[in-house]
């Protein structure tokens, strides 16, 4: 019983230390997770960690949080998942609130106001960058390109969740029509499958 709590606390503490490394994206965490989870604690094998990152990418949500939760689950079920998730999120939560509080205090300073005029333009660039990153895996042929182009003006009128559901439906219909017409369909981008090349640097994540 006592050992159980020690294990849960170790999970929490391990990810609490790794959390601050998830700056802007979860991939900076990989070497640290390898070191802590595989080498130091010997909880998992290196291949398992690679699988976890592949899985974390295939579900929605941030890679940092997903991978911590997956690893926690592998090691100690649902309780482990919760301990690891709280561990990885807590430092971030504290840092972001501190910075936020600081900002709310100084936002009326003319120098800060001036800085934010420029920063806002950079934020648009960061979002545009995320769009380019997403497009690389999403646009595999002409149909997906057309869907994307129509999607942008459509979003001014319909709720994003409805648009996403419509997208899934259109995908199913398009694929079945293409199949009936006898086309060979490439549904995934081959480059995307090669996710390990992306591990070194991927910043569009979490946007």
């Amino acid at each position, binding site marked *: 019983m006592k050992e159980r709590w020690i294990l849960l606390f170790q999970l929490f503490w391990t990810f609490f230390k790794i959390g601050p490394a998830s700056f802007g994206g979860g991939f900076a965490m990989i070497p640290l997770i390898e070191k802590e989870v595989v080498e130091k604690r010997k909880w998992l094998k290196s291949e398992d960690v690679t699988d976890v990152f592949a899985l974390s990418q295939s*579900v929605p949500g941030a890679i940092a949080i*997903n991978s911590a939760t997956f690893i926690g689950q592998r090691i100690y079920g649902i309780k482990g*998942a919760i301990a690891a998730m709280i561990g990885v999120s807590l430092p971030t*939560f504290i*840092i972001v609130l501190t910075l936020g509080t600081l900002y709310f205090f100084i936002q009326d300073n003319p120098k800060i106001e001036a800085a934010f005029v420029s920063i806002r333009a950079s934020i648009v*660039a960061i979002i545009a960058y995320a769009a380019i990153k997403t497009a690389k895996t999403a646009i595999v042929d002409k149909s997906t390109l057309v869907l994307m182009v129509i999607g942008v003006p459509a979003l001014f009128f319909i709720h994003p969740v409805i648009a996403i559901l419509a*997208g899934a439906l259109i*995908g199913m219909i398009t694929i079945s029509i293409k199949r009936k017409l006898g086309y060979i369909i490439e549904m995934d981008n081959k480059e995307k499958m090669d996710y390990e090349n992306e591990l070194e640097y991927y910043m569009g994540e*979490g946007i």
Partner: protein
Amino acid sequence: MIPVIEIEVSQHDWMTTQQFTDIIAIAGMSPGPIAANSAILVGYSTAGIYGAIVSALGILLPAILLVIVVGTFFIKLHHLPVVRSMFYGLRPIVTSLVIYASVSFALSNNMISKTLSWQTASLLLVFGLSLFALLKLRWHPAYVIILSGLVGVVLYS
């Protein structure tokens, strides 16, 4: 996620798109996923510390549920043709969503206007250089935000 948060935030009148852009900037300077950080800050600015905690739980809960569901059976479904054809149509829409977000942020920050003022031109230049730094020089977003802030102090104060 950012575009969905933006739509919800303006529908509930929690803040303007411009205020939300500043929130994203703070979120981008902190470790952790930008969208989750933005959610925490939206919660904090609308309802204080409890707002922050509630928003954090709100954004984390679906993640943990998904992980549990995926961990048990989705892995097997992932390669099914039906699931793959859904993703085939879903991914382009997610891309349009992100493009839509960058357009609506650009509109609310006076980056798109009929008359080309000095302000608009300089903002477009900042946008172009930031994108170049991210795409070609592979800079970290946090560095781009900090450097851009310094440029702003020089240009606009």
